[in-house]
């Protein structure tokens, strides 16, 4: 491929990937959920991998996909699973003036960088890597040659760093159990002693129709009991709203009255439910 003349194909690849990567970056910033952010970043990284390959760096492109998109981003997702959903996902700014200042400063950085880059790079053409790659028989061979000659010390140091990081991660993530695991007896005694919930926590308000744990149980007076729903769902605010009509219908049935027509049931906004089915 000729590097001296800008090729149409490369221009097309660049623009597509540039738009995708910027979209991914914006998605990272704007997504409410961390999982979505991770997926958007993965998109950006894949786009960047394509751009690497377009820039005569096929090895780096592959490494980008394997290491970043494959390993690093998946590690992020694993950790997200461990950490779960957090109130910090909220996009509401808590520090006064932080968001405006951040955007202003960020744009300032961007303007400065782009101004600096475009003043110095306008009209500069790439030399191309054909000659450099040809010297040792290809891109990978050229990189290997450099890595194991000029950069061999750095390479070794980086190897040591990786080992250290692995060990460090093990040490950090390892949780030492300081006390023996409590037996069921001890747990029940503890519950009795603290006196809050002697019995196990109540079950969610399970309806036979969909068996959802996100449905809160109702107390005899009709109010809902939050402790019937698992804590992570509560933290995420994923309590299913009470289907008051169904409750009333149940009450009516119990009183021997006729049930309402199915069309009169209110429709819940949750796609997972099928409001039309009373039982």
């Amino acid at each position: 491929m000729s590097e001296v003349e800008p090729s149409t194909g490369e221009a097309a690849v660049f623009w597509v990937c540039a738009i995708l990567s910027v979209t991914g970056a914006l998605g990272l910033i704007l997504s409410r959920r961390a999982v979505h952010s991770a997926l958007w970043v993965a998109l950006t990284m894949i786009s960047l991998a394509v751009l690497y390959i377009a820039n005569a760096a096929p090895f780096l492109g592959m490494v980008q996909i394997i290491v970043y998109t494959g390993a690093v981003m998946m590690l992020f997702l694993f950790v997200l699973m461990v950490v779960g959903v957090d109130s910090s996902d909220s996009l509401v700014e808590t520090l006064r003036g932080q968001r405006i200042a951040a955007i202003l400063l960020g744009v300032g950085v961007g303007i400065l960088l782009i101004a600096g880059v475009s003043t110095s790079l306008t009209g500069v053409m790439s030399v191309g890597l054909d000659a450099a790659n040809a010297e040792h028989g290809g891109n990978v061979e050229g990189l290997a040659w450099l890595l194991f000659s000029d950069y061999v010390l750095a390479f070794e140091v980086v190897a040591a760093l990786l080992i250290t990081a692995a060990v460090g991660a093990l040490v950090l993530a390892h949780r030492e159990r300081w006390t023996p695991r409590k037996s069921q007896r001890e747990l029940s005694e503890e519950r009795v002693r603290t006196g809050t919930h002697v019995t196990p926590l109540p079950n969610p308000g399970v309806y036979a129709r969909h068996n959802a744990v996100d449905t809160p149980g109702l107390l005899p007076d009709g109010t809902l009991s939050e402790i019937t729903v698992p804590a992570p769902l509560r933290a995420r605010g994923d309590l299913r709203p009470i289907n008051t009509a169904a409750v009333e219908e149940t009450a009516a049935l119990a009183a021997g009255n006729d049930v309402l027509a199915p069309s009169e049931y209110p429709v819940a906004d949750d796609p997972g439910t099928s409001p039309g089915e009373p039982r």
Partner: protein
Amino acid sequence: MNPESYVVLACVLFTLGAIGVLVRRNAIVVFMSIELMLNAANLAFVAFARMNGNLEGQVIAFFVMVVAAAEVVVGLAIIVTIYRSRRSASIDEPNLLKY
């Protein structure tokens, strides 16, 4: 295709990453923003390597990736540890730096 386009794109991505760091509160998202900034730098390295006809830029980008991988491993382990003790992954919460 001249290198200017690539470098400008790298600048844009870097800026977005920086804004992400400043704006988001979830430590993991902040971490991802940092990764984005590293990737932007890598893109600039690769473009410059091609511009100068020299493979060393790619070597540097390679090292950046490796170091970033190590950093991610340790950083995420720290986040997990903090989450275990504080039940939160917000970077505003551990403001013990104040006292």
